[in-house]
C-alpha cells in the first residue's frame, strides 16, 4: 500500500473517532522500516520525547528517562523511540522494562507518561530525524481532523433537519443555513489539507506541505467545532450526545504535533527567506 493510501485511512479513523493507535502504529512502522528494524506483532506507539537518553556501553544499548504524552502508551505492544546518539538520530524498539502512568487528553484518549530504564530490543541509526517524525505526526492529525470535521458536518446538517423550533426545522432558517455553509467550507479546506498531508509523507517528508496542511486543518478544527456546537444548541453540550466525541478530538488533535503558530511560522519563515518575487513559485511547488 502506498503511504498516501495508508494515511488516507486515518481520515476514516477520524470520522469514526477510532479508539485505536492506528496513527501511532503507522508512524512507528515507518520509523522501523526506514531504520531496517523488523516489525513486531501488535499495535505500536512512538515517541521522540526530549528527556530520553539512549546510550551505548560497548555493544549494549540502554534507554533511560521520561516521555510524556505518549499516545496509547499503555495499550501498545511496543514503543518506538527516536533519540539522538552523539548528534545522530537513532531508532530503538522497546517492548518492556518501562512503567506506565495514566494520563489522557481532553478527548480522554490515552496520552501516557512512560518512564524507561531498560535495554531496547533493537537499535539502529535512523535516516529520519525528530523533525521528520513531528511532521509525519502532524500529517496524521491533519487527516484525522479532516475526518472528524466531515463527521460533524454530516451530524450537524442532520440535526438541523431534524430539530424543529418555531414550527419548522431550524435548518430552514437562513442564519442557520449560513452557519452550516461556513462549517462545510471549513471542512472542505480541511479535506484538501488532509489530502496534501497524505501525499507529503513517503520515504521522507515534505515539510512545507505538511506545515500548510496541519495549520489549515487545525484552524478549520477550531472554527468547525464552534459552529457545530452553536447549531446543536444545549443538547450538543451534554455528555450523552455524541457530538463531543468529535469536537474534543478536534481540539486535542489540532495541538498534537504542533498547532497553527508552530507550522505557520515554519512556512512563513521559508516564504520570507525565499523572497517576495519567489512567493508564487514557492507556493505552487508545495
Amino acid at each position, binding site marked *: 500500500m502506498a503511504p498516501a493510501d495508508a494515511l488516507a485511512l486515518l481520515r476514516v479513523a477520524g470520522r469514526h473517532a477510532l479508539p485505536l493507535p492506528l496513527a501511532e502504529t503507522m508512524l512507528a512502522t515507518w520509523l522501523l522500516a526506514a531504520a531496517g528494524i523488523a516489525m513486531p506483532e501488535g499495535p505500536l506507539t512512538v515517541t521522540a520525547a526530549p528527556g530520553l537518553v539512549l546510550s551505548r556501553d560497548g555493544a549494549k544499548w540502554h534507554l533511560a528517562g521520561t516521555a510524556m504524552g505518549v499516545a496509547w502508551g499503555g495499550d501498545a505492544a511496543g514503543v518506538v523511540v527516536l533519540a539522538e546518539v552523539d548528534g545522530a538520530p537513532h531508532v530503538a524498539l522497546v517492548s518492556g522494562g518501562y512503567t506506565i502512568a495514566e494520563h489522557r487528553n481532553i478527548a480522554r484518549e490515552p496520552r501516557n507518561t512512560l518512564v524507561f530504564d531498560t535495554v531496547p530490543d533493537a537499535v539502529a541509526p535512523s535516516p529520519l530525524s525528530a523533525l521528520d517524525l513531528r511532521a509525519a505526526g502532524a500529517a496524521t492529525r491533519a487527516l484525522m481532523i479532516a475526518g472528524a470535521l466531515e463527521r460533524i458536518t454530516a451530524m450537524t446538517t442532520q440535526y438541523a433537519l431534524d430539530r424543529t423550533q418555531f414550527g419548522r426545522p431550524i435548518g430552514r432558517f*437562513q442564519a442557520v*443555513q449560513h452557519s452550516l*455553509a461556513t462549517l462545510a467550507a471549513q471542512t472542505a*479546506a480541511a479535506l484538501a489539507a488532509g489530502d496534501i498531508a497524505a501525499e507529503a509523507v513517503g520515504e521522507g517528508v515534505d515539510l512545507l506541505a505538511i506545515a500548510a*496542511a496541519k*495549520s489549515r486543518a487545525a484552524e478549520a478544527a477550531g472554527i468547525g467545532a464552534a459552529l457545530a456546537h452553536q447549531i446543536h444548541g444545549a443538547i450538543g453540550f451534554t455528555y450523552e450526545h455524541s457530538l463531543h466525541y468529535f469536537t474534543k478530538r478536534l481540539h486535542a488533535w489540532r495541538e498534537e504535533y504542533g498547532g497553527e503558530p508552530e507550522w505557520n511560522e515554519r512556512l512563513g519563515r521559508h*516564504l520570507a527567506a525565499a523572497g517576495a518575487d519567489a512567493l508564487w*513559485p514557492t507556493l*505552487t511547488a508545495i
Partner: protein
Amino acid sequence: MSALTFPPPPVSLEAEALRSEVRAFLATELADFPAERRMESWSGFDAAFSRKLGQRGWIGLTFPTEYGGHGRTALERYVVIEELLAAGAPVVGHWIADRQSGPSILRFGSEAQKRFFIPRIVAGECFFCIGMSEPNSGSDLASVRTRATKVEGGWHINGTKLWTSQAHFSHYMILFCRSSGTPEDRQNGTSQFLVDLKTTKGLSIRPVHALTGEHHFNEIVFQDAFVPDDALLGEEGQGWHQVTSELAYERSGPERFLSSFILLVETLRVLGAHPSERAAIAIGRLGAHLVTLRRLSRSVAGMLQAGENPATQAALVKDLGALLEQEIPDIARSLVAVDPPTPEIARFARVLDYTTQHAPSFSLRGGTREILRGIIARGLGLR
C-alpha cells in the same frame, strides 16, 4: 456526488511544461510593469497584451481546434490563468470571453456563431461582457425585466443593464433577458442574445464610477435596440438553464482567491527575509490558506474537465476565497505601519490602499456571499 467531494486534481506534465513557458514570457513581457499596475489583478486592461496572449495561443486553450481553439485540457488553461493572475498581468480584456462567453457559445451556439466568434476570441481581439444584473435585479437574477420582443427579422430589446463591467471596451455582450411572459414567470421565458455593442443602434453605455473613481462598471440602456434573429444564443426560453451553467466556470477559478495576491507579495517585500515571529506566523498562515484553496480550485477544474457540474464545490471555493482576499489587506496593515511614509512604504501603501478599497467587491461580484452560502446550504440538502 456529495457536496464535499473534491477529487484529487489531475496531474498534468503538459500543464507543468506550459507553466515554465508562461513564466518566461511574463518575466520578459512584464519586466517593467510596476506593482501599482499589477495590483489591479484581473481588472487591469491592455488590449495589446490580450492580443499577444492570443498570438501565443493562450486564450481559448480548451476550445476545440475545429473552431480555432487549442484543444487543450482544463488543467492547462488553469495553469495559464493562475500564472497570469499571480503576476498581476492586465487580462480583463479577454477574461470574460475566455472564461465563460466562449464556452457558452461552444455549448449552446449555432455552427455559424461558433465559426464567427470563437476564432476572434482565441485571437484576443473579441472582448465580451456579461449582461445579467439590472437596477432591480442583482442577486435575484430571475426577476429581470429587460425584454426582447419578436419583430420582423429579429428582436427589439428594451430595458436597462447595470454593473456591466468593461462594457465600454467590450465588443459583445451576452444579454440575459425576458423573451416571453412577465417577470412573475421568474426563470421561465428567458433567453440569451449576442449583442454587438459597437454597431447596434438604440443602446447607450454610460459609466458608473466605482468608489475609487475608476471606470469599470457601466449602465446600458436599450431602447428598441434591434438585434437580428441570428443573435439568439441557444434556444428561446432556455436562458435560465444556459446562464446557470456558466456559473461553475465563473466561481471556482483562481481569480476567486488571488485578487489580493500582489498586496501579499508587496507585504513580503517590505518585511524582508527575516520578519518578526508575529509576521512570519501571519505570512505562513496566508500561505497555508492559498495552498489549500489552490488544491480545491484545481480539483473543481478537474471536475469541469470531466464534464461534471460542481456548482456547490465552486460556491465553496468562492466563499473561502473571498474571505482570504478580504483578510489580506487587514493582515498587511497589521504587519506594516504606513506612517511615517518612506519611498518604499509609500509604494506599499498605494497597493494596500487600492486593495483595501476594492476588498468589499470581492464578496459581491460573481455571486454575493449570501447567495453562495444559500447554494452551499442547498447542496447540503437544507433547501
